[in-house]
Each structure stands twice: as C-alpha cells, then as structure tokens.
C-alpha cells in the first residue's frame, strides 16, 4: 500500500498556498494569524514527510522546534492584537493603513 511521495508533498503545498491566500486576502487580524498557523503546519508536514522518505530523524526534530516557536509566536501575536485593540477598537486591518498614500 503505497502513496506516492509527491502526493503528500503537493497536498502540503496546497495547504500552504491556501494559508497564504487567506493571509493576503482576509481583513480580520485573528483570521490572518490563524492562516499563519496553517502555513506553519503545512511546513511541518513537509518536514515529517521528508523524514519518512529519507529515513532520517532530522525532519521530526525540526517539527518539534517549529511547533514550540509557533506557540510562542502566536502568543506574542495575540498579545499585540490585544494591545492594538485598545487604540483601534476593531480588528479590521483596514484601519491600520496610516502609511497609505
């Protein structure tokens, strides 16, 4: 029972690009942060896949650390959202465009 490696990898790529699409297109900051998590997960899957294909544990070690850092990063990101919300009173990125021409 065999699944071609390229299937798994392209599945991972698709998830990544969906996450990228959401990152660029959505306006709600929280959804944007969620899409970032999506992208990170896709990358994790790629690492694990290669770990299985190449029979090396490095991929899984990388995933270990990526998950940790992702956790820290999302915590800090949400903290920033909270701090921003105090001034902005909204989570719409339309309001964060002071550098607009």
């Amino acid at each position: 029972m065999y699944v071609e490696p390229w299937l798994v990898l392209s599945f991972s790529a698709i998830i990544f690009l969906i996450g990228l699409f959401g990152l660029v297109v959505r306006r709600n900051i929280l959804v944007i942060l969620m899409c970032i998590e999506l992208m990170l997960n896709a990358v994790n899957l790629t690492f694990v896949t290669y770990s299985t294909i190449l029979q090396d544990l490095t991929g899984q070690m990388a995933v270990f650390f990526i998950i940790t850092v992702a956790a820290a990063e999302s915590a800090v990101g949400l903290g920033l959202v909270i701090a921003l919300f105090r001034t902005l009173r909204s989570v719409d990125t339309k309001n964060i465009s002071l550098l607009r021409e």
Partner: protein
Amino acid sequence: MEISPIFFYLFSGLAIFCSLMVVFKKNPVTSAFNLVLVFFAFASIYALMGAHFVAALQVLVYAGAIMVLFVFVIMLLKADEPVFDLRENNKFFVMSVALTLLGIAGYFITTFKEASYQEIGPYSISAIEQNGGNTRVLAETLFSQYILPFELTSILLLGAIVAVVAIAMRKKNLKSNTNVGGKA
C-alpha cells in the same frame, strides 16, 4: 511511502476542506474551529507516517493550547460577529492573488512529480521499532544531538511569556497597584 492510501486521502481531503473553510468563512469562531479540525487531520497524517510523538505534540500544543488561546482572544475582543470582509477587497487583487497561487501550486506539483528520493538515513520504520519506538528514539536524539536548541527554545519561551505580559498588560493599573495585598 508505505501508508494506507484510503486513510491518507480521507484525512488530506478533510484537511483541505477545513482549511478552505478557515479562509472563506465569515465568523472568526468558525474559522478557529475549522482550524482545530485541520490540526486533527494533520495529527492523523503524522501518525500514519510513523511520527507518533509529533502527532501527540500537535494535538496537545496546537489544538490544545494555541487554539484555546485564539478563542480566548476572539471572545475577549468580542470579534465574533460575522463580517464578510472578503467582499470589501479589490476583486482584481483577489483574482490576481488566486491566479498567482494557482500557478505556484502547479509548479510545485510538477516539480515534486519529477523529483526522486534516496534513503540516506538509518531510521527506517523497522529500525525505529527495533530501538524502542518513535518517542524513545526521538528523545535520545533530542537530548544528545539537539540539546542546545532545546535549551535555547526554553529561553525563547521564557522571553515570549515576559514579552506578552509586557505588551498586553493594561498600563493604567501600574501606578495604582502599590498595595498589592491590601485593600482594593
């Protein structure tokens, strides 16, 4: 790879569907729960591929901690009203983004198709089983080869905690908090 196709297709289909929901749903809470489902699907796929520890870690940390935090913040900020913000974007912009990403996807898929792999490492599934299972092997590697990143990661987490507290704290109450244990 020696994994069962049916389960793979099932879980990958679920993951794709749910990630599309994450992106296209109006309500942020809906997005959050769909994301949880995505994480579960991913954890299953990790388990399928023999990375049991990572699967567990995924559920615990991602689905268990991070998403909880997300939902906390959504409710705290009362941002759970559904707003279809996709409509307010420039249609041309959305189209071009979609097209670009489709193009990139096509490129990735064709490249992956043509790629070939060689086993380079000693950690085949049978070898891992012989050595005590995925977790044990992982732990041995973690605490021998990757001890430095491990320690640094712990410091990173400490820094993150301090940073978040500093950023998200209400500044107003700093001065009036002089008698901590006394009367409010």
